[in-house]
């Protein structure tokens, strides 16, 4: 009789193990399915985006820290030196010949030198940088609020997104498909802490951290903080740019909204 128990118990164990195995391979198969990917991205991802937009409607500021709380070493992630002769030429002269192009759906497209940007109103903030991988570092950033720059060039009525085109080819592609880029919408672009930073911890932005100019869009993860910004393009839609997902890492599977 107990034998019956044990065989049934054994059956249960085998069943559980089998179910576990099926579950795992089933989940892997689901993960690989584009329609399921889309399902969990839209049902979970959009819900997260909508919920956060609702909660952050008052545009609260990200926590700012004291100078004493700055990380002793701020990790440089992704590209630490863009591999291009053009970039090296700019860096050699201390970026005096560098120009930031601002164009697209703007009233007055134009180019800005580093000196132009430094002459504009600036904001300094000591914030926490959260990498999607799970580490955090605290650093101080000084730059011009992106909103100020956008007001200066004027947005056309159909402007929806700000695309940041970068100098680094993270994938070392031949056709430029590996060039780093990012995009944010106007909700984040006009947030007071969204700045184009040219200084870090009181010193000019160093090359590993994105010299001469990088984006700081606090309240989102590290891959949104585009480094080596060369051009700002204002657009109405992002699905026709490069991989169509709005950014280098987004084209490689990561979520466009990185507030979580």
């Amino acid at each position: 009789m107990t034998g019956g128990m044990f065989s049934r118990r054994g059956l249960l164990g085998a069943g559980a193990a089998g179910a576990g195995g099926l579950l795992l391979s089933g989940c892997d198969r689901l993960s690989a399915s584009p329609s399921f990917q889309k399902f969990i991205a839209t049902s979970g991802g959009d819900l997260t985006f909508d919920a956060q937009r609702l909660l952050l409607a008052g545009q609260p500021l990200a926590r700012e820290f004291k100078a004493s709380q700055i990380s002793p070493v701020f990790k440089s992630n992704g590209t630490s030196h863009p591999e291009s002769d053009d970039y090296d030429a700019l860096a050699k002269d201390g970026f005096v010949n560098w120009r930031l192009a601002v164009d697209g759906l703007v009233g007055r497209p134009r180019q800005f030198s580093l000196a132009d940007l430094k002459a504009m109103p600036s904001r300094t903030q000591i914030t926490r940088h959260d990498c999607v991988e799970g580490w955090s570092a605290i650093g101080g950033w000084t730059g011009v609020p992106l909103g100020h720059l956008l007001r200066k060039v004027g947005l056309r009525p159909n402007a929806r997104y700000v695309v940041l085109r970068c100098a680094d080819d993270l994938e070392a592609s031949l056709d430029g498909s590996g060039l780093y880029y990012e995009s944010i919408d106007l909700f984040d672009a006009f947030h007071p802490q969204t700045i184009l930073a040219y200084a870090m911890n009181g010193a000019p932005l160093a090359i590993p951290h994105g010299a001469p100019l990088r984006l700081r869009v606090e309240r989102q993860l590290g891959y949104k903080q585009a480094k080596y910004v060369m051009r700002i393009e204002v657009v109405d839609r992002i699905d026709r740019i490069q991989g169509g997902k709005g950014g280098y890492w987004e084209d490689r599977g990561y979520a466009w909204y990185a507030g979580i």
Partner: protein
Amino acid sequence: MTVEAADTPSVPTAEAADPPVIPTAKRPTGREVIYRHSLVVRLTHWINVLVISLLLMSGLNIFNAYPRLHWGQFGADFDKAWLEMAALGPSADHAKGVVRIAGHPFTTTGVFGVSKDAHGVSVVQGFPSWATLPSQRDLATARRWHFFLAWLFVINGAVYFLFALVNGHLRRDLAPSGADLRPRNIVRSIVDHIRLKHPVGEEAKRYNILQKLAYLAVIFLILPAMILTGLAMSPGFDSLAPWLVDVFGGRPSARSIHFISANLIVLFVIVHVVEVFLAGVWNEIRSMITGRYVIRTEHGA
């Protein structure tokens, strides 16, 4: 727990479909079937089994992207980690897997640090492929799974919590009574657990005090801690509630507590499943599927 058939000496009809396990001669004379778990409890329980399992596995994949844990407001490669999984050696094939806790190294080759993937290839990663979702390293997909499941978990938990409050499950079945909390009762319950002795008769109709405390700790401490530490890791949410990050002592601390709480859930599940087996696996599982639970009203056989 509604008593459905009181003191029925014979096998109740609800039991007819159940294969006889104990010969009639040895069957205890008293056998009572009670309705132990309501439909909402049963449904939310099994949804939780699935959702928490997948949350854990996708969480381990996310952990593997940066298999180090810190305390404080910041923490990255150059900062001190209290827990770290690493591989030492020239290549994955010849590496030693190591877990360092507070600086003390433990060799964990084959499980943590270095392990074999589904194709038998040695890979350098924190948790092994068989424990992660997806099985290969894929932070982007793991995050999509994790956040999708987190919504299911929160909705499921809210349904359970509202029901438990309204229906009285919380007050009636989980809240410890004065008698439960008497030191003598607690000591007796501890001794019973150590001796693997399970209650019969009237006593089996209620949760014992250790059981109540364990369920309450999971429902009101550990699971909420998972949600709150999870939210504290969101830079967007942090701007709304910076105090929440401070409660945990910083985002890296919240990530550490998230990890520790996940381990506590695993520990709870192990004890829970062991107790299910000790208390009578069929009776326990049936009660969580159909709601019906058989009580032996006296010490039989």
